[in-house]
């Protein structure tokens, strides 16, 4: 286990360095200067040159890459935002990453709860209406993109409830924005529905498989009830595929969903990411890519460790 952790942690900087260089190359080939803001005027070339010099962008790509890497690794300094002068990338990340993480955790919690419940219920009574319902919900969750579910949720809980149930204030959820737990409910549901559906399906299929396996039959033969066998043994094994799904899902949920953040007007990292690409705000873009990659790698590592813990048959190394 220790070897696994160590080797992965040694790989981490190498992978990050490769990702960094790839992103930097891609940023560099996008035409135009990040300092020319949309629909403002074309800056005097002399001034533009001076502006680039101000940010060290006039240096050659390798020099810039090296300086930036040194700043990031030694001072954890991701540089200034080119789009918002006066704001540092670190400052922007400090404001938006927690927002995205809070939303992502909420969405994952919702997804896990709903997905596991639906999956187990479906598996408990195969062929029943319960199973049909849970599979239908799962199908809808997988099929509908989050901007559709997001807008439906908005229409229902922020629009229709206000109009037709003016007294049921608990159902009047904010139209969007961020700042109160109530404002988080709809986006978390919109973002968590797709993972919920995947989880429900994974658990449902996993359970069906495991419940007919030898060790569960043995357990049942020894006198365990179906519930005891399911919750005590089978669920643990059926949960494994969910775990491998959770690694990347967690990384992507925590670093923000551009679409959901857009629909609900949430000031999160997902919007920053897309804006940074559009604005060619390379410092911000590089920082977000690095944060996202780090999270992705770390979550995969956590998943691998959890795997070993849940299923001793699996050797990790």
């Amino acid at each position, binding site marked *: 286990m220790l070897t696994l952790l160590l080797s992965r942690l040694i790989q981490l900087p190498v992978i990050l360095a490769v990702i960094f260089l790839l992103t930097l190359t891609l940023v560099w080939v996008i035409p135009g200067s990040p300092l020319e803001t949309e*629909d403002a005027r074309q800056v005097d070339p002399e001034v533009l040159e001076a502006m680039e010099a101000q940010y060290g962008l006039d240096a050659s790509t390798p020099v810039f890459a090296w300086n930036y890497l040194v700043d990031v690794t030694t001072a954890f300094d991701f540089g200034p935002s080119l789009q918002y*002068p006066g*704001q540092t990338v670190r400052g922007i990340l400090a404001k938006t990453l927690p927002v995205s*993480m809070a939303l992502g*955790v909420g969405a994952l919690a919702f997804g896990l*709860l709903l997905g596991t419940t639906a999956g187990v219920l479906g598996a408990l009574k195969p062929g029943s209406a319960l199973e049909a319902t849970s599979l239908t919900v799962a199908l809808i969750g997988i099929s509908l993109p989050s901007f559709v579910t997001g807008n439906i949720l908005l229409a229902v809980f922020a629009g229709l409830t206000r109009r037709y149930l003016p007294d049921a204030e608990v159902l009047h959820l904010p139209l969007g924005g961020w700042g109160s737990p109530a*404002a988080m409910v709809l986006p978390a549901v919109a973002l968590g529905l797709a993972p919920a559906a995947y989880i429900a399906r994974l658990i449902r299929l996993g359970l069906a498989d495991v419940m007919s396996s030898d060790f569960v039959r043995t357990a049942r033969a020894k006198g365990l009830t179906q519930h005891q066998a399911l919750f005590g043994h089978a669920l643990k094994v059926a*949960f494994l595929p969910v775990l491998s799904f959770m690694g990347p899902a967690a990384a992507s949920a925590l670093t923000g969903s551009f679409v959901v953040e857009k629909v609900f*007007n949430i000031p999160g990292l997902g919007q920053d990411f897309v804006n940074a690409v559009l604005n060619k705000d390379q410092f911000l873009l590089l920082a977000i890519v690095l944060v996202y990659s780090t999270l992705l790698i770390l979550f995969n590592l956590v998943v691998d460790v959890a795997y070993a813990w849940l299923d001793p048959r699996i050797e990790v190394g």
Partner: protein
Amino acid sequence: MVAIVVGVVALAFAVVSIAGFESPPPPLLQPDEHEEEPDGVLRFGVVADVITLNPQGTSSLTDFRVINCVFEGLLATDARDLSLKPGVAVGLPDVSDDGRVYTFTLRDDARWSNGDPVTADDFAFAWRRAITYDFASVYSELFWVIEGALDAWSWREQQLNDFDPDTQTAQEAWDAFQQHLTDTVAIEAADDRTLRITLAAPTAYFSELVTFGTLMPNHRKTVEPCITLDESTGRAVFDSRYFTDPDRLISNGPFALREWKLRRRMTLDANPHYWDNTNVTLARIIQVVIEDNEPLLVTRYLDGDLDWLPEIGQALAVRLREADLPGAYTVPRAGLEYYAFNVRDTVDGQPNPLVDVRVRRALAMAIDKRALVEKVTRLGEPVQSSFVPVGAVRGYDPPVEEDLGHDPDAARALLAEAGYPGGDGFPTLRLLFNTSTSRERVAVRVANQWKETLGIEVATENYEWRSYLDRRRKGQFHVARSGWFGDYQDPTTWLMLMAENNPNNATGYADPAFNQLMRDAANETDPPKRLDLLRQAEAKMLRDQPIVPLYQVVSLQLVAPRVSGLHNNAWNNLNLERVVVRSDSGSPAD
């Protein structure tokens, strides 16, 4: 096991939630019922936040809208009639007979938001900062009219290129540059209340220019310490966080920055030290940002949460205008939309048929501008046949060349005369524009008109902003969609675009006669004669047809009936400090 997972997740959720929500939770879109607010609050909504409040660091109209609230220049523009009114200066400057020396007298009761007096030196400092190479102010070019300014910029650039940390410290180089600025640039703070500027040439619009955001002052005492020197390169580095931090930013306008949550909301409070504060009718201005979500902005406006939406994008604006929504006003702006013709000999190595003025004229005459504004843009845009929008500059009537209007037969004849009868032998015309639905519709419409009238093939090429700029700069187009908003009330704010070597002159147009007329106008001290020379220059340029003006830009805004005193004009001068918001009436939808 599930219980453990759920428990861990719930715990993490609680922790991150606390971290994610600031305390107390900022009301963004929920009505601020619990926050105590003073009487007289104007809330307006926008889709993109201010980029910076550094007056010398932006060219964006969104930024200047707020900068005009928190800073005040020597003179200001009266939003009602666009006349000049006193700002920090007590009145119009004394101008020397040769039109080159401007002397401004500052009022002695002008104060910064911390109570310090606003001095001539605060202006001199800000302007010198704007022409310092190290800070790369986007609008440095506005200062090139001042004697010595451009040279000082180049001097510093050269000094930095030659900088050697072994022979000189960064401080020594900086001090030498400061001395150079004082010695050679004609910005002189004669005493605390007298600012004397000598211009390189008589510049009749200089009084208009000092109302512009880039020429607003800096509180020297707090801005100067934001400058640090890099020992290895000798460069001065400015800490622009100063202009984002309400605790640090000292300003001299009717309002001061109270709070700024990037991309969410910005609050400005009336500045108690402002010299004319008895005439400030608003206690607070709140800018609410709902990024790229206009429908949500309009919903909040209809709910009565927002008093004013200053700009609505084309597509939604058309729908709102047709829905006849209460409080929807269209305002013609001091900006125009035009197509620029590439007049260079070749385009991507191929011969360019547009070098022939007859071809350009044929293209221009084949465009039915009226159909364009009535069927495509649909905001009642005035059709434009001059480069300076009609009515944008007091006292200037742009030349209108009647014979260049929509005339398909004449267009066909001209194209035939140029050697392309019925479009035969004409290469595929490349029409470049930057991504936007409305621009695409215009481009497709114009392309169709060219195809139907002249029989030429048109390839519409759609690029995002930076790629579009890149191609435009490199001349990789035949026709490029362009737009231009004026900065100050003078024809030159448009006409200089067509001067040779202007970075925004996409066309490659370089006409000696036009340039000579522009130079003559620059040296003319008699205002009517000067305007006449500019008129001749514009007429000459329009005849040469490096561009075809399409229409004047119209913006639609929503103003709640409870708001009064919002004088909308073609310019960005709104005098928001004179706006009155009544608190009694409900939402505009009522």
